[in-house]
């Protein structure tokens, strides 16, 4: 959304920011990264966070998990509570003191760091410089695995068909759908099936899903039906907000599917021994 944001003098008529050049990536894997779990993963999909850690450690990267992390501030930001979002964002910034890459387990939260912190702190030049630098080294997990780690996955699982759902902000702000597809393509026994209106929103939208339950409900009902009709045995996504929405609706509608975080799917497919993850 605010990739269109323009940082101009207060009264100046705004023009849209020019199109971004394709992102360039570091040529070497970093020794350290910060992992940002996100609040939804923390409480509802902790195994996805752990699988992200396993995947990253397998790449020889030391994962740092600041224990004081909480939420990126997005729920308040998108609900119009800008000051509250700003305070929370500031507290998260304070944790990320090293210039290590920040790897985020959820697309929309990565987008918050990359695209919207600059809006929050547009009036604080020092913090703005800090968030601009942070944005440069913030990655959504699948992007980091693919582009920075240049991960090579060896599929160990049975043949299966999956449908991929990508969160709208991750798709539009970071091309996560393309990254996730490439990762899935590396798995030789996994066939990715398209589903109807694949690029369409699942209806989550944070507080939208509770403020406008009728509209949101119609959207998620279409999404779950499309996923089911695709014929896929499994549903994966790199965004836990969408997963919370889609899985909750699957269960409510008695559809025998359960969306899985891409990190968990990738980790499980590439494990020789089916050990418990922890």
């Amino acid at each position, binding site marked *: 959304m605010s990739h269109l944001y323009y940082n101009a*003098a207060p*009264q100046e*008529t705004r*023009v849209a920011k020019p199109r971004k050049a394709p992102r360039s990536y570091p040529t070497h894997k970093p020794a350290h990264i910060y992992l940002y779990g996100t609040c939804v993963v923390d409480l509802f999909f902790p195994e996805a966070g752990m699988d992200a850690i396993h995947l990253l450690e397998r790449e020889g990267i030391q994962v740092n998990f600041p224990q004081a992390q909480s939420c990126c501030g997005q729920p308040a930001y998108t609900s119009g509570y800008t000051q509250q979002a700003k305070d929370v964002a500031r507290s998260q910034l304070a944790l990320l003191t090293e210039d290590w890459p920040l790897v985020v387990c959820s697309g929309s939260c990565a987008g918050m760091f990359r695209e919207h912190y600059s809006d929050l702190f547009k009036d604080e030049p020092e913090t703005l410089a800090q968030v601009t630098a942070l944005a440069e080294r913030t990655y959504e997990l699948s992007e980091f695995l693919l582009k920075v780690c240049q991960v090579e996955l060896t599929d160990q699982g049975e043949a299966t068909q999956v449908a991929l759902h990508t969160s709208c902000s991750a798709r539009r702000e970071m091309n996560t759908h393309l990254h996730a597809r490439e990762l899935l393509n590396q798995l030789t026994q996994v066939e990715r099936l398209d589903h109807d209106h694949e690029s369409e929103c699942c209806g989550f939208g944070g507080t939208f899903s509770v403020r406008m339950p009728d509209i949101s409900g119609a959207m998620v009902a279409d999404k779950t039906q499309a996923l089911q009709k695709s014929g896929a045995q499994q549903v994966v996504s790199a965004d836990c907000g969408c997963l919370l929405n889609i899985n909750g609706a699957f269960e409510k509608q008695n559809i025998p599917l359960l969306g899985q975080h891409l990190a968990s799917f990738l980790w499980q497919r590439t494990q020789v021994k089916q050990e418990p993850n922890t």
Partner: protein
Amino acid sequence: MSAREKILASLRQSLEGTQPLADPFDASLVDKPWRYCPAERVTRLKELMTAVHSEVHLTRSAEWPQLLHELLTQRQINRLLTAPSTTHGQAFSAYCQIQDSSLKLLAYDRPIEEWKRELFDDVPASFTGTLAGIAATGTLVVQPSPAEPRLMSLVPPLHIALLKASQIYDNLYQAQQAWPRPMPSNLLLISGPSKTADIEQVLAYGAHGPKDLIVLLVEDA
């Protein structure tokens, strides 16, 4: 304070301390992607106009009056609104005379108020010139004039337009450079007969204007 003063004052206040942004126009963006060689111009215009239900006939200076006459005969049209004072109007009228044609040529020689009923009910076809053509979009540029008033290309169910190949521009930007200044009271871009897709997106031609558009494209002019 008048509405005018109120609006302008409010807008000016909102812009206080700012400068107008520089003119951002970039001709290459509207020109370069839409350039064609002369032969392509004709084919492209024909292709695009045909795709929207127009008939485009390639013809020559010496042949178009005969072609026009044939087309009207085929359609059993016996009344045609023309502009006798224009070169093309004269040329066609001369042809009809030589042929001793039964076609009745009507002229738009009175203010609309004096013959509105007739124009609406009894004129099955009209024949006009064009100022230019546009290859990129398959478009005719029509400049209504005292000789060929505005409604001539609108009210009759069939509009026939004469277009010289040499007058086809690559794109709207190029065509625009040649438009008269000050702008004429009315200038039209016409890209096919009138149409609508307002019911279920089903395309229907002959909405409120002509149901058919025929272009006589004169290749050697």
